[in-house]
C-alpha cells in the first residue's frame, strides 16, 4: 500500500480538506451563525434607521437608515471575522486535533489559506445576507458594486487573519471574545458606523482619525454612496497596512511555532 504519486508543490487537497472541514462546521451551525447577526442588524435598522432615523433627515445625501447600513455590515464583518477565525484555529488547539494538521505535508501558507479562507467566506456570506436584509428595510443603491465586493473581501480576509492570530494566542475560550467585544465593537461604534465623523467637534474629529476602524467604515461607505470621511485611497492604504501587519505576525507564528509547537 502506498500513495506514490509525485508530491505537488502546492497541497491543494490539504487546503481544500481544511477549508471544507471549516465550512462543514459553518453548515452545522448555520442558523446560529446567521440568526444572531441578522437579528442584531434588523434591530439596529428598526431602532436607529426607522424610529430615530425618521427624525434625522439626510446624511451625505442619503437617508439615515441607508447611511448606517455600511457601518452595520462592517460591525458584523469585523466581529464575526475575528470570532470565526479565532474559534476555527483555537478549537483544534484546544481538543488536540491540531497535531494532524501540524504533522501533515501542508505549509504554513496552506494552513492559513484553509482556515482563514473558510472564515473569510463565512464573513462575506454574512455580509451579503445582512446587505440583503437591510434592503428589505431601506432603499440602497450601491454606486461601486465591484469595489464594495472587493473591499468586503479585503476586510474579511484581513480581520480573519487577525482572528487567526487571536486563536493561536488565546489560552482559553474566553480570551477569544476579548478583542471582538472589548476592542473592535467600541471602536466600530466610535468609528462612524452611525454618524459621519465630520459631525464631530474639531478635537473629537481629530481624535477619531486615530481609530483605524474609521478608515474601514469610511472606505466601505464610499463604495455605497461615493461619500467618505477620509479619501478612499487612505482607507485602502490603511487596510493594506493592517493586512501586512497581520501577515507579518502569522509568518512569525509559523517561523517560531509560537503556541503551536513546543
Amino acid at each position, binding site marked *: *500500500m502506498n*500513495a506514490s504519486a509525485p508530491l505537488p508543490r502546492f497541497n491543494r*487537497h490539504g487546503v481544500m480538506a481544511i477549508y471544507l472541514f471549516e465550512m462543514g462546521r459553518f453548515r452545522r451551525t448555520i442558523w446560529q451563525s446567521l440568526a444572531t447577526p441578522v437579528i442584531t442588524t434588523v434591530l439596529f435598522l428598526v431602532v436607529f434607521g426607522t424610529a430615530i432615523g425618521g427624525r434625522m433627515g439626510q446624511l451625505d445625501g442619503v437617508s439615515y437608515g441607508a447611511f448606517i447600513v455600511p457601518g452595520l455590515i462592517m460591525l458584523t464583518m469585523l466581529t464575526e471575522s475575528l470570532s470565526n477565525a479565532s474559534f476555527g484555529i483555537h478549537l483544534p488547539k484546544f*481538543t488536540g486535533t491540531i497535531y*494532524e494538521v501540524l*504533522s501533515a*505535508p501542508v505549509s504554513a501558507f496552506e494552513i492559513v489559506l484553509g482556515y482563514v479562507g473558510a472564515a473569510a467566506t463565512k464573513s462575506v456570506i454574512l455580509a451579503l445576507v445582512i446587505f440583503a436584509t437591510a434592503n428589505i428595510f431601506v432603499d440602497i443603491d450601491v454606486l461601486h458594486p465591484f469595489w464594495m465586493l472587493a473591499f468586503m473581501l479585503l476586510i474579511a480576509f484581513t480581520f480573519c487573519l487577525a482572528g487567526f492570530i487571536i486563536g493561536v494566542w488565546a489560552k482559553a475560550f474566553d480570551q477569544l471574545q476579548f478583542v471582538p467585544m472589548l476592542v473592535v465593537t467600541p471602536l466600530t461604534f466610535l468609528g462612524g458606523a452611525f454618524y459621519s465623523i465630520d459631525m464631530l467637534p474639531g478635537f473629537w474629529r481629530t481624535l477619531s482619525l486615530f481609530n483605524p476602524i474609521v478608515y474601514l467604515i469610511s472606505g466601505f461607505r464610499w463604495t455605497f454612496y461615493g461619500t467618505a470621511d477620509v479619501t478612499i485611497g487612505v482607507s485602502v492604504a490603511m487596510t493594506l497596512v493592517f493586512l501586512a501587519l497581520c501577515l507579518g505576525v502569522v509568518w512569525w507564528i509559523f517561523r517560531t511555532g509560537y503556541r503551536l*509547537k513546543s
Partner: protein
Amino acid sequence: MQNILSISSLTKTYASGLQALKPVDLEIRKGEIFALLGPNGAGKTTLISIVCGLVTPSTGTVLVDGHDIRRDFRAARAMIGLVPQELHTDMFETVWATVNFSRGLFGLGRDHAHLERVLRDLSLWDKRNDKIMTLSGGMKRRLLIAKALAHEPRLLFLDEPTAGVDVELRRDMWEMVRRLRDDGVTIILTTHYIEEAEEMADRIGVINNGELILVEEKARLMKKLGKKQLTLHLHEPLVSVPPELDGWGLALKNEGSELEYTFNATEEGTVIPKLLKRIGDLGIDFHDLNTRQSSLEEIFVDLVSARK
C-alpha cells in the same frame, strides 16, 4: 537492509531548560517493527513528535527515506502516519468525514476503496456514518489508527497504541500491526506494556532520561541480558546450601524445599549438566525441576535502574 529513518545527533532542550533528549542516533530499517521502551518522561513522545514535525529539535538531523524533515518536509511527512497517545478527535464529525479529511490533508485525492478497506480492517465500517462522539474509547483508538492509515504511510508511529485498551482489542491491534508490517509498513511503537514489545517487536530501543541506552534485536537482547533460573524441587528439605556447592551461588527457597540457580542465558547448555552431576554426587535427590527465563520487563527494569 535499507533504512527508512535516520536520526543523527538529535537533541531537544525545552525553553524551561529541561533536556528532553540528549544526543540520539538511531537507524530504523525498512519493514521492521521497532519498539521504543522507556519510563514516563523518558523522551519517547518528544522523539516521535520531532520526527513528525510537532516539536522543533534543538540540534541534529532526521531523514525519512532520505528526505530531511525540515528542508524536504512535504516528502518526509507524506510517508509518515502518526497515532498519538491521547484520543484527540473531532467529536462532531462522522467517521467517514474524518478519514477523508486525513487523506486530503496529506495531499491525496479521494479513494473510497482504500478508506473502506482501512475501516473494514479496523472493524469501523459499520460505524462510518456515526459521529465520533458516539464511539467507545476502543473505537476512537482504532479510528485514530484509521486516520493515520488514510494516506497510506510507509512509516507508522504508534504512541502507546494500547494504553487503556482491553486485552481482546489489544490482541486485535497486534494482529493488525503484523498485517501492516506484512504489507511493507515500518512500525515504530512506544509502549509501557513490555509484553507488547516482547510479543511484536523485531528490535527494541530503551530510552531513559532522554538517552537511548541501547538498541538491540529482541532475541539477542533477551539472550544477552536475560537471566535463566533452574529450580530443583527436593525430596528432603535442606537447612542450608552444602559448602561443596558454595561457588555456584545457589539459593534455598520455600523453607529449604527448593534449590534455585540463576545463570546467564548465554551459559545455557554448558553449566546445567555440570551442576546436576555435582548435586547427584552429593546425594541430594529431587523429584522435579523447571527452568524460567526472565521477561523483557525484568531486563528493562534492570537496565533502567542500573542507570539511576
